[in-house]
């Protein structure tokens, strides 16, 4: 029953776009009208040795795309559709796929491997296709190497697609054995060895048990290390990728091998081809990642035991590792500063050096200083740049006591280099290093300031001058200024930057106006730096910030007036609008924070709103996000007066809430609803029907990105707090949603950290909703409406308490809800409260918490409860 699809598939790759589109349309129709026949026809095409390579390959790709999609919701649909297909059709398709693994056409084999893995990804977790792994393994022993290669490739993809739990240990063992044997030097065929090495990379996560067994682990490690010495560069690279993955997955098993690994990686870094050398450096970077995490877990608290002990591999290798990395710094590429995606030995080496500094702290300084001193004054720009880069890399990690004396000596030199060095590379890195100095060694926490009245003016003059340099240098100078300003964020009423404020702002605005401001992301850096300068400014310069409002409004106005733009220009314009909205957001926040400046700001609020409304009228997601944030800030500043903007703004609010494809826009808009609730209080009531309808729709949609759900629940709380007992009419919709979400989030049921984090954020949202509702109804005649929900809410509190996996934030919110419930329901809930675990064990635990916010919430809850049960 398969149909002939060769011609359509070939047409779909035609150079003639009309032919191509027509063919694509046909394929789509076919797929919609008869999925089983469509998929079967594709698999038959893929398996047919008589067919052209191009149509076979495309058949495989279309088949693959019918099984998987990036977007979660679509993926789920595709999986369900496959599972519901007739068993015999699926059987035929799978037979075709397995048969293709023996094809002589390598493209067809490789495509079939990928499709098989996709099918396995769907079926194995459902306990279907149990014979797959067995039949693949039997292929491994076949003589033709190309079949073996394809089979091992399939096993590798399979490990990538399927979770380890879906395959039992016996089969895992067999897969690993086949893969590791394929890597072995005894395997004559290079393609088989390469496929095996790549397959091992995917299979490492499956080898938990095998890595716990000394003999098996020794064997795997020996084979991987041997593969790093293969004459084939691709095999060496793949072997190092395995090593990197082993390093982060089985850090605690590495001790016996680390010396050997150091030897082979250093040889690779020095002598091997770049792709291999980069992976060798990556191995050490990922070891740093592991040790930084472990040492972080140790924290200042030595009683806390981390699951994994630190073996201090980096510290042990330090004296050899640092010189190795310093050598790489001299291997820069000429144009790396202009190329945003550049990645080479010098960059990887410097990045690793930075991680090493964070891992070992002070110990790195004496090992790097001689390199800096030797190279910083050399005639070759590569040496000066490498020396500067080395310095910049080690500024995070070592203690200020160790670094500040060095920085004090170096600062003058760096400022001169930034103005006078003939090499743009050196200037770029120098400005970046200054930024790192200000980021880590400047600020109110540090006892000895590195910026003093004596050098402040010079620093600023040099940075502002560099903003006229090449775009990449100017961008780094902005970065330095950004951190310079940030260091003064809590400086008190007078800031050393005040005398320069106007000049700084003007220079930054000039930078944004440069013709070449689009290069090296200079414009973005300049605006964001302007924001930071404003944010960290003091009341002394408030007047100037007020003036800036008009400047930014004028700029924004200009972008809205521009007409007939090319698509390139439009894109640029859109980006600029986003930056300007961001700038407005920061200025509004700043001026809105104190009364006198707030009034100065509010004289422009009509104009600002009009501009923002026009921005909303242009449809672009990023700009909407930024404009929404400005609206939120403005709502706080205007307070109840924001009501007059609501009639015009409301439709954009609704549009934002409906935008679940661009879920960040939706999320930001949900947040803005909260801002508006707090600003308008009960005046928001008129809009609540629309808002609630939209929020409830969002929650019921299975297309909504899950990260938006917690903020929507919190938003229920915001609304209830604002409109009080008027929330009554939404209770019958909101409460069941909250209740079912609460049931789902009561148990995490997964050891996955990310999932636990998400569950906790969901719980927090739900609890904030409950708190808002209770507090909203407090003292109203309708509190009794909440009584029926009390048992479930208390039960929810009890069950998350018993689960013992709440984070501090959820704990605080949860104990708060207990208090709110008691506060609002009073004696009506007394017996329920007394029967709950939360009101006893949980409350007591919170009362003796070290976290003062938890303690405060708990003390309040205790008071509310004692009042409720004493009445």
């Amino acid at each position, binding site marked *: 029953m398969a149909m002939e699809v060769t011609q359509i598939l070939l047409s779909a790759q035609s150079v003639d776009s009309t032919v191509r589109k027509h063919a694509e349309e046909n394929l789509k129709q076919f797929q919609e009208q008869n999925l089983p026949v469509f998929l079967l026809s594709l698999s038959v095409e893929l398996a047919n040795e008589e067919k052209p390579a191009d149509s076979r390959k495309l058949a495989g790709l279309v088949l693959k795309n019918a099984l998987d999609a990036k977007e979660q919701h679509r993926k789920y649909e595709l999986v369900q559709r496959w599972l519901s297909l007739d068993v015999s059709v699926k059987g035929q398709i799978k037979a075709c796929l397995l048969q293709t693994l023996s094809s002589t056409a390598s493209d067809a084999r490789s495509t079939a491997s*990928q499709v098989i893995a996709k099918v396995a990804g769907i079926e194995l977790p459902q306990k279907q296709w149990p014979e797959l792994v067995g039949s693949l393994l039997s292929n491994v022993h076949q003589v033709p190497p190309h079949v073996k290669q394809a089979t091992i490739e399939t096993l590798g993809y399979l490990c*990538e697609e399927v979770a380890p739990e879906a395959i039992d240990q016996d089969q895992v063992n067999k897969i690993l054995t086949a893969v590791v044997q394929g890597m072995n030097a005894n395997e004559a065929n290079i393609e088989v060895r390469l496929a095996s090495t790549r397959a091992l990379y995917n299979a490492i996560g499956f080898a938990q048990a095998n890595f716990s067994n000394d003999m098996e682990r020794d064997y795997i490690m020996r084979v991987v290390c041997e593969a790093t010495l293969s004459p084939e560069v691709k095999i060496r690279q793949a072997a190092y*990728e395995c090593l990197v993955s082993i390093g982060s997955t089985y850090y605690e098993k590495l001790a016996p091998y680390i010396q050997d690994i150091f030897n082979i990686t250093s040889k690779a870094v020095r002598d091997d081809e770049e*792709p291999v050398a*980069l992976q060798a450096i*990556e191995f050490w*970077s990922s070891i740093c990642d592991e040790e930084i995490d472990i040492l972080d877990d140790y924290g200042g608290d030595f009683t806390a035991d981390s699951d994994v002990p630190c073996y201090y591999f980096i510290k042990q290798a330090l004296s050899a590792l640092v010189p190795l990395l310093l050598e790489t710094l001299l291997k820069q590429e000429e144009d790396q500063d202009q190329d945003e995606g*550049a990645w080479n030995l010098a*960059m*990887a080496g*410097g*990045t690793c*050096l*930075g991680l090493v500094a964070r891992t070992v702290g002070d110990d790195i300084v004496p090992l790097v200083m001689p390199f800096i001193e030797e190279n910083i004054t050399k005639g070759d720009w590569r040496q000066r740049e490498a020396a500067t880069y080395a310095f*910049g*890399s080690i500024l995070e990690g070592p203690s200020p006591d160790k670094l500040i004396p060095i920085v004090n000596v170096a600062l003058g030199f760096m400022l001169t280099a930034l103005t006078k060095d003939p090499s743009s590379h050196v200037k770029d890195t120098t400005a970046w290093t200054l930024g790192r100095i200000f980021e880590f060694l400047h600020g*109110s926490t*540090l006892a000895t300031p590195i910026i003093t009245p004596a050098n402040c003016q010079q620093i600023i003059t040099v940075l502002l001058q560099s903003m006229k340099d090449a775009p990449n240098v100017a*961008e*780094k100078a*902005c*970065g330095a200024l950004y*951190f310079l300003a940030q260091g003064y964020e*809590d400086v008190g*009423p007078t800031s050393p930057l005040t005398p320069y404020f106007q000049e700084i702002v003007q220079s930054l605005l000039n930078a944004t106006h440069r013709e070449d401001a689009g290069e090296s*992301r200079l414009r*973005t*850096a300049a605006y*964001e*730096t302007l*924001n930071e300068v404003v944010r960290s400014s003091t009341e002394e310069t408030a007047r100037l910030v007020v003036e800036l409002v008009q400047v930014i409004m004028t700029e924004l106005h200009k972008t809205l007036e521009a007409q007939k733009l090319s698509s390139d220009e439009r894109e640029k314009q859109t980006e600029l609008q986003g930056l300007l909205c*961001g700038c407005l957001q*920061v200025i509004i*926040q700043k001026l809105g924070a*104190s009364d006198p400046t707030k009034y100065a700001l509010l004289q422009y609020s009509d104009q600002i709103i009009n501009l923002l409304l026009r921005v909303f009228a242009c449809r672009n997601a990023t700009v909407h996000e930024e404009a929404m944030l400005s609206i*939120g*800030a403005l709502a*706080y500043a205007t*307070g109840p007066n924001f009501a007059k903007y609501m009639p015009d703004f409301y439709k954009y609010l609704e549009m934002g809430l409906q935008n679940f494809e661009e879920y960040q826009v939706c999320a930001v808009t949900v947040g803005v609803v*909260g*801002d508006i609730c*707090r600003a308008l209080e009960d005046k928001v009531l008129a809009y609540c029907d629309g808002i609630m309808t939209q929020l409830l729709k969002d929650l019921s949609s299975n297309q909504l990105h899950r990260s938006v759900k917690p903020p929507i629940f919190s938003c229920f*709380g*915001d609304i209830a*707090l604002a409109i009080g007992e008027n929330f009554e009419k939404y209770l019958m919709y909101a409460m069941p949603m909250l209740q079912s979400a609460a049931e789902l989030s009561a148990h995490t049921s997964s050891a996955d950290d990310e999932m636990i984090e998400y569950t906790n954020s969901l719980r927090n949202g739900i609890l*904030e909703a409950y708190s*808002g509702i209770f507090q909203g109804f407090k003292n109203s*005649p*309708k509190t*009794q409406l909440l*009584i*029926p929900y009390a048992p479930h809410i208390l039960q929810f509190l009890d069950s998350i308490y018993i689960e013992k996996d709440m984070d501090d934030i959820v704990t605080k919110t949860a104990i708060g809800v207990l208090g709110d419930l008691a*506060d609002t329901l009073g004696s*009506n809930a007394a017996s329920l409260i007394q*029967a709950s675990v939360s009101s006893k064990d949980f409350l007591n635990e919170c009362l003796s918490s070290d976290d003062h916010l938890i303690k*405060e919430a708990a003390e*309040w809850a205790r*008071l*509310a409860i004692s009042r409720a049960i*004493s009445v």
Partner: protein
Amino acid sequence: MADENSTPHKRGPLKSSVGSAAVQRRRDHAVTVRKERREALMRTKRLCRVGVSSDDADVPVDADMATDEEQSVLEDQTVKSMEELNLAIAYQGKGAMQKRVNALRELRRLLSKSEYPPVEAALKAGAMPTLVQCLSFGSPDEQLLETAWCLTNIAAGKPEETKALLPALPLLIAHMGEKSSLPVAEQCAWALGNVAGEGEELRDVLLSQGALQPLARMMLPNKGSTGHAKAATELIRIDGVLDAILRHLKRGDEELATEVAWVVVYLTALSNVATSMLAKSDLLQILVDRLASSNSLELLIPVLRSLGNLVAGDSYVTDNVLVAGNEVTVRVIQVMIKCLSSEHRVLKKESAWALSNVAAGSVEHKKLIHSSGAVSILIRLLSTSPFDIRKEVAYVLGNLCVAPSESGRPVLIVDHLVSLVGGGCLSGFADLVRSADIEAARLGLQFLELVLRGMPNGEGPKLVEAEDGIEAMERFQFHENEELRSMANQLVDKYFGEDYGLDA
């Protein structure tokens, strides 16, 4: 799927441009700000309530009362927290602000902790100069708030402890200014209120330092918040304020009178001192006049609530003003009838509540209400109005049927009971018994008990049975509330036991 030729690096370069991280940080900051504001709002809502009640004398005492030992622990903690605070003030590094605020918060918590707050220990440890320093201009709001809160607690102490606040007064007054945020201004007002309450001497100091104007400004509702509550107690203590309130309420146009009436609502709700001062003025008369003459809902609500607060809050009113035979008493009942018959639920509910407080008075009061037109309206409301109003109405009707007695057990007023039951109120009470609301159920049961016990000729049980009262009471057989369970079970046993129905 891995591309054949290149492995894309996943690690970001150490040397990166500032832009994208800055954008992210800015957005995160917006989210953080929003969270903080949500939290601050929630905190205000919660603390507002706590604050109000701890201002009263009869705070529900903590379950575990402080023993002497606990007291000395508390004092040690206080001394320690003062040390922490001084350290935090000396510290100038990053996060200094947060450190100070945390230290202040700890001190404040200690000072609010027990029935006997360790005020003396704090003062001995040098709290006052330190706290005055924390009030200096330009300090962040959170710090000011916590400091003013500490001072509020100190001022609530013994007279000489209150006087210790003298050096802080000018700054507390200054922070009530227009530029201050509302929570800070309110907390300062509260602290000053405690000072003003101490006596004439301190009140004079406050007046001479100009406290009156900012306090009065806070009373006006144009600051966009309902939070002028804390300023209430202290305002009333200031000379001239009471007169101004009465004058505006009496002669002002409806708009002004509405504003002032809300002020009175807060005063009477929040402060016993204020209530008792107002009770002795001719406020009641003015309120009644307003209720009788106005049809503005905006005005009627606060006026009616003020009246209710006044009646409920101070026995002086019921005992000395609303005595039977006074014209004002009759008029109060008339305006209540007007409100009970209103279309507006808030008016109905508030007036029922106010009336229930009058009905709780003397037998004369009960007679007066019983003989007025209120009863038929009340009985109708008991069966037709929303639940919360029914509850208030039930209180009025219940109160009409019993009178306080010296023996403790209330005495039944049989003719009232008979006429109310005759008017058809029993089914309404039986409904209340079936309610899930414990308070309402208790009311219902109590009334059934009256009927069972008090109706002449032993008619009670039959009447109750006719309203399905037995079934209603049997619902409590296994109720989790012990009081209701035993009350209902006893009634059923006593009146519907084995012998019931034998002689029928």
